């Protein structure tokens, strides 16, 4: 009996003939920390060499969001260069500027990442969630912090 098209095409032997040419051009991500702990984490991530990611405001020190008005150009440049924007917050972060940043990221995919959710006080989690949920196309509540690097790598950052 001859093989069906599907049976032949899904064999291990046929897998050798799959094209190996690139099937996508690099994407850019912008990671924007929403609180000091997230900023410290982003500093470490930046050192890991994610070539297609801009980590915003890492050298600005804590309270950088309080002084956003003076730094809008750098933030906007990072957002405009990106296809995906990641707002990084630890549970309890006010993330009050999420709406402003989401507005700047209009037309881009916005991922909200809330870290340290395990054991966080419900009101703290709700606070961060309320800030990010209205704007994020995808919201992730991770128990710890190691997920961020895994996600960036999976997204070819």
């Amino acid at each position, binding site marked *: 009996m001859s*093989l*069906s*098209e*599907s*049976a032949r*095409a*899904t*064999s*291990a032997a*046929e*897998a050798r003939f*799959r094209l190996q040419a690139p*099937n*996508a051009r690099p994407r850019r991500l912008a990671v924007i920390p929403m609180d000091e702990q997230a900023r410290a984490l982003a500093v470490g991530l930046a050192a890991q060499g994610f070539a297609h990611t801009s980590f915003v405001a890492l050298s600005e020190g804590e309270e950088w969001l309080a002084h956003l008005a003076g730094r809008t150009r750098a933030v906007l440049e990072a957002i405009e260069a990106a296809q*995906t924007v990641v707002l990084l917050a630890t549970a309890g972060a006010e993330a009050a500027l999420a709406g402003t940043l989401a507005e700047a990221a209009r037309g881009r*995919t916005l*991922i909200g990442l809330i870290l340290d*959710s*395990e054991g966080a006080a*419900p009101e703290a*989690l*709700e606070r961060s*969630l*309320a800030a990010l*949920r209205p704007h*994020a*196309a*995808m*919201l*992730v*509540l*991770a*128990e710890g912090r*190691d*997920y961020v690097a*895994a*996600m960036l*790598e*999976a*997204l*070819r950052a």
Partner: protein
Amino acid sequence: MLRQEQNELATRTGPGTAMGKLFRSYWVPALLAEELPEDGGPPVRVKLLSERLLAWRDSTGRYGLMDEFCAHRGVSLWFGRNEEGGLRCPYHGWKYDVTGQCVEVPSEPAENGFCARIKLAAYPLVQVGDILWTYMGPPEQQPPLPEWEFARVPAAQTFTSKRVQECNWMQAMEGGIDSSHVSWLHRGALNHDPLFKGAKGNQYNLRDAKPVFEVVEMPGGLYIGARRNAEDGRYYWRITPWVMPSFTMVPPRGDHPVHGHFWIPIDDENCWAWSFDYHPVRALTAQELQHMKDGHGIHVTYVPGSFRPAANKDNDYLIDRAAQQRGDTYSGVAGIAMQDASLQESMGPIVDRTRENLVSTDNGIIMARHRLLRAARALAEKGVLPPGREAEHQRVRSAAVILPPDQPFKEAAAEALRVREGVAQSSV
């Protein structure tokens, strides 16, 4: 994407592999209990985690799962004679009990102790619900028996089927946590499938084909919440739990039975897709059972005498291009299970994840991979036993609920997401 070495780690489950050790930390479904229906009946060949095994039930009713091949000359004991508390190789009469212990070597004097030195590798085989479960790991690390609700409710309330899927376990399982494909591939099912249709929640689904997703980590795995707008500014949530290593539950619809899956490696290029339907508080109706046996919902019909789906790669999944054009089915393949399986098998035996381009809605898949790889490494390198073994991790439910807009669904729906004996599923 995964790097090649990560993909290898995730997909290889044979003896000695890191992911194989992870799977060997759990009780996994091995056979349907109906496959060994009577004491002293014929044995059944079983391949699990790339190990060729034989399942049988001796003349006293004890279950056994052991190396398929006789220790003497390598004959398959599938040809064995099941007689008087043991399975006898038909070649030279060596006889084994359900623990794999050789109890008789006819050519050797009984008193010389030869047969006591012969023992086939064997694993425990235990019935819980309508499934025979096995644990293939170190005996000293054997976890408590499975506590999944579908396997613990009375027999009249539950139905389980299995089918062979001809691809690696992980690409099959990833379909179960990829909630974003449902609005496309399965869009016809909400109106037509007898095990889905009629629920109020379906209207939310049909009105909004672009839900917003939230992925929430939990100790045993994760929840994937798909959110759509409901009335009065509230959200309609469909919440899918994934528990390590490969258990998922589909959020319920109305009072229909709740369904879910296990994906268990047969070898690295084939897996069992286990599919269950149950109702927490009532017996399944005769009509529901008939629908399940007829291949509706998440079940399939079979090539007679096998667990291979009737629609399979050898007949191009009975693809119906006219039905696709009419919109009866989105891919032209009928039935939810084979709509998934046909596409997952089309990826090839083990999909090359180095060439993927994942997007934000794939965060459930990304998180599940992250958890699996992390747990496999921790077990292999430090001996840390993985999550998902504890009863507390297994006593979860999926849920379909309407919640206020500002609450974390894991907390707001906490009661709905855990097993409550005597309480129905939370559904819309």
